[in-house]
């Protein structure tokens, strides 16, 4: 069977796998954005306790493999609580917590790369700290962060393949299941790889366009 025939024959299963990959990634990224902003602001907070909590969160997530985090959330926690999460929920939690920690560092770095004088100028006009943040600091920080944000989206999309280990039938797991039937592992993995590659290339293209537009706006 040619690679094209293989693709056509397994089209419904592959598309449903791709769909799981995409929606798990999108939900995780949305949660990660919230986590990233909250913990990112906590990382630069003057409150020691808030800063401490955020640092511990980031350290734990960055210091452990995502596959261990997935096992811990899917198998470890139910072992104690007795409540079993389904693979999708556990997968989304894992991916969100993971991307959230890296995003927190992005947010911290982005905010800190805005010159200190910007905050001072805004405060000297009478703006509160949060007004200065939303009006002056964050709009500039987001521009600086944009390439890293896209990069994080790509990493999270690819990391979602790890969730196959807890039985989530996303794209990678779908590929494995199909190969278990037809033994066409060479061609099937090429198909799966291309199916990851296409959305990622689209994402990269979009970010380049936005970046270009922002640059024009700045001049």
């Amino acid at each position, binding site marked *: 069977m040619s690679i094209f025939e293989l693709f056509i024959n397994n089209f419904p299963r592959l598309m449903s796998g791709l769909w799981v990959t995409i929606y798990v990634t999108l939900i995780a990224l949305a949660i990660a954005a919230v986590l990233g902003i909250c913990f990112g602001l906590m990382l630069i907070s003057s409150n020691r306790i808030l800063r401490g909590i955020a640092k511990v969160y980031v350290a734990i997530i960055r210091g452990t493999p995502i596959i261990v985090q997935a096992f811990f959330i899917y198998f470890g926690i139910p072992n104690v609580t007795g409540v079993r999460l389904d693979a999708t929920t556990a997968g989304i939690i894992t991916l969100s917590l993971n991307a959230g920690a890296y995003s927190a560092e992005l947010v911290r770095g982005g905010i800190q790369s805005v010159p200190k*004088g*910007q905050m001072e*100028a805004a405060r*000297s*006009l*009478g*703006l509160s700290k949060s007004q200065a943040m939303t009006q002056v600091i964050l709009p*500039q920080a987001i521009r600086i962060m944009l390439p890293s944000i896209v990069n994080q989206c790509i990493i999270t999309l690819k990391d979602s393949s790890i969730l196959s280990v807890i039985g989530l039938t996303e794209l990678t797991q779908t590929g494995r299941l199909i190969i278990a039937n037809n033994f066409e592992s060479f061609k099937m993995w090429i198909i799966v790889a291309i199916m990851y590659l296409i959305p990622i290339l689209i994402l990269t293209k979009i970010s380049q366009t936005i970046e270009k537009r922002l640059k024009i706006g*700045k*001049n």
Partner: protein
Amino acid sequence: MAKIEVKNLKKSFDDLEVLKDINLEVEEGEVICVIGPSGSGKSTMLRCINALEESTGGTIIVDDNDITDKNGDIDLYRQNIGMVFQQFNLFPHKSVLENVMMAPVTLKLKTKEEAEETARNLLKRVGLAEKADSMPSELSGGQQQRVAIARALAMNPDVMLFDEPTSALDPEMVGEVLNVMKELAQEGMTMVVVTHEMGFAREVADRVIFIDDGFIVEEGPPQEVFNNPQNDRTKDFLNKVL
């Protein structure tokens, strides 16, 4: 009642005592120029007046508001104190007009239309009416600093603080900024200006203050301080810069 009253102001950064005991009163409409060697504490003093630096001791009253009161509403007090920075600090993601409109609109003191009208008038006043739609990065340093002055004036402050406003400018742009400041002084604005422009201080200041090593060492009308300094450190400093 003085517009600005600084009493026994002290400021330390960790172990470094920058301001040791500063006492200063500024009357309404008075223009004070603060001079002194770098590291003498003159910028720190200025930044304490609007609490960009938290003072370690003493009190600062601006317009009956106690700036050093930790329970006071510093955001509200600052609305009345304009500040112009050495590095301009314009908001690079906003146009010139938006820079000037931003604070009154964000603080809901004016509607967008009112703020825009004020902003256009202020830009005309600093000679930049035609630059309203430019981005800050398209302007020269002197133009940026004039926008920064307009931005501060948009809050209609009673007091203006200038922190070495011409130190980051190319020499040929110093004049245009000083002219705007001179006009402001003539219109009766209360101003405290930290500067190295001795010519400006001599011409525009009502009073010159010489700070060295965390103290006000000498103060008086410019003719007296410049022509007949009493303190040896003032003499030494003026010999170097004049």
